[in-house]
């Protein structure tokens, strides 16, 4: 199958008074049609910055320093601002983190949903628009009466579903979901994720899920990308990553997960995340790595395919 989205050597720096912070440094991955990719990593590993860069929604002092974001062979980074505005939502849509704060509190839901549709499709007739909004709300499991409500009348899970409805309203090719359920309870989280999965499959879009909950990833995505200090350190199919993680960081991450098997054993990852202002030389993980070798301290490993479908950046391979 062909790749819908190809990201190549994407680099984003935040220009601060103390120097550039290399938030995203050479990220490369691709996404097939209908595929779900999970981007995981600690806070500050660059996962949200990557997603915002794909949408070109970064604000100062962040700047895209280089790379390509090819969506159906069109490089989004070379589009004009107007072209990019037309592509957002229609070709590549964002479902933001914290739905609580992303809806306008003084606008009815139908007007907020209608705004997006109007911008891209021009003015539809009133009845046509109402029908479209009702269909959208139904597709995310909401009552059509929600259209006339204000955000404060909805629960957190319902608001997040409205955001999903907005994300799929123009049937984009790629949906980016940035921790869409981090503020929700587990039961509601499951409902929302199931809704998102169903909606994504219906329109045949590809999806990138950003988060740090490995459990949610295991349940939802096909492929996982692990980020550390602004770089992808491992990409592979979800089953392989959980069964046989290759990168030492991924291995520690998987081992640290609490599960309902084995009690009272906690294995944390020693050390702390490096400063991106002044990253350690060589492999950024070497100060915390249990398998560190001499060359790790001087030479950065190359991100390469070590087995079919398994990409790792580590000197062990």
């Amino acid at each position: 199958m062909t790749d819908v989205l190809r990201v190549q050597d994407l680099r984003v720096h935040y220009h601060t008074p103390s120097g550039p912070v290399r938030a995203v440094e050479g990220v490369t991955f691709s996404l097939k049609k209908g595929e779900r990719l999970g981007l995981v990593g600690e806070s500050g590993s660059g996962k949200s910055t990557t997603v915002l860069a794909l949408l070109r929604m970064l604000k100062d002092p962040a700047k895209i320093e280089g790379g390509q974001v090819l969506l159906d062979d069109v490089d989004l980074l070379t589009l004009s601002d107007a072209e990019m505005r037309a592509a957002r939502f229609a070709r590549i849509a964002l479902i933001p983190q914290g739905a609580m704060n992303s809806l306008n509190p003084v606008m009815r839901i139908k007007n907020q949903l209608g705004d997006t549709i109007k911008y891209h499709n021009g003015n539809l007739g009133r009845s046509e628009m109402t029908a479209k909004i009702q269909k959208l709300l139904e597709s995310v499991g909401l009552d059509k009466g929600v259209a006339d409500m204000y955000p404060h009348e909805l629960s957190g899970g319902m608001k997040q579903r409205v955001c999903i409805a907005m994300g799929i309203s123009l049937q984009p090719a790629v949906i980016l979901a940035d921790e869409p359920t981090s503020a929700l309870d587990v039961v509601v989280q499951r409902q929302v994720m199931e809704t998102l999965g169903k909606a994504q499959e219906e329109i045949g879009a590809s999806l990138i899920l950003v988060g740090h909950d490995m459990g949610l990833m295991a349940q939802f995505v096909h492929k996982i990308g692990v980020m550390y200090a602004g770089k992808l350190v491992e990409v592979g199919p979800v089953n392989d990553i959980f069964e046989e993680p290759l990168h030492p960081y991924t291995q520690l991450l998987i081992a640290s997960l609490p599960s309902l098997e084995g009690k009272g054993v906690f294995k944390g990852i020693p050390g702390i995340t490096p400063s991106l202002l002044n990253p350690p030389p060589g492999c950024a993980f070497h100060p915390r790595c249990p398998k560190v070798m001499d060359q790790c301290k001087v030479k950065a490993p190359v991100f390469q395919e070590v087995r079919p479908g398994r990409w790792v950046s580590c000197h062990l391979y």
Partner: protein
Amino acid sequence: MTALLEARNVSKTFGAGLFNKKHTVALQSASLTLSDERPSITAIAGESGSGKTTLARILLGITQPTSGDILYKGQALSKLDRATWKTFRREVQAVFQDPFEVYNPFYNVDHVLTTPISKFYPNAGHAETRQIMEDALRSVGLRPEETLGRYPHQLSGGQRQRIMVARALLLKPRIIVADEPVSMVDASLRATILESLLNVHKQFNISLIYITHDLTTAYQLSENIMMMYQGAVVETGDVDLVIKQSQHPYTQLLVDSIPLPNPKLQWGQRDFTQRTQSNGAGPNLGCRFADRCPHVMSICREKLPPLYQTDERRSVACYLYKDAPVAEVAVAA
């Protein structure tokens, strides 16, 4: 046997303010006993709005219950004299959720450690104070020379949260109440914080009350668990029984919704009701879960079910088990 800390049918009602005439029952006759003889770890679990934090604050003496009593070594908290109150304050310590908000950014982190020392050990000299601080930091796995003298923004969330555990330790407490201590730190650091809590429990014989919405860590850490839903205790007892062989339909739903970190164990083993959460505004007569329950019966909407003792070490508030005897004590840890 006198219990170390006991909650007897505590309830808390908020509300009836100027504009909002509705009362919110945040907690409905919850009971809990911590033994004086054997240190234990008890988890209080539930979703947001289940009343778990309210219960924690009542146990800490920060919030007054509307009815019911908290007994500390057999004495009601509301009737403690000054000296005993101070002992209670020293022996029951708290670790809160947010490791960012509890620090004053203008003071270095020594401040949160020296304040309790000067309050409870007024005679400690400079060297002794330093020694107490260093010991406490070491027992949570922090290196004092890398921690003391720093400002909060120079430390990671995980380090700050471990300093809070160290602060609780300083005063050699009997009980630590930890309210969602790991919900705001990264997944990779959670394990380290829980590990230091567990070590503290083992090394210093401190009882823990671990409040959380995360059933996996509750299962890993605790011996007993109290499941709460909208202010009411729905299932309580031995953690293995409650999580692995849940009886209350709500516990079953929650356990079934945990995203397990194993791609081979997928969601959706059990029938899943799509109802949205009721907002608690309805009449508080029956079981709070009745609206979402797949096994709802007519009696569920009429009367709040009592806790039935279905097992030697577990009781459930559900009419499905009404043939079992009504439980006398909630958690006897």
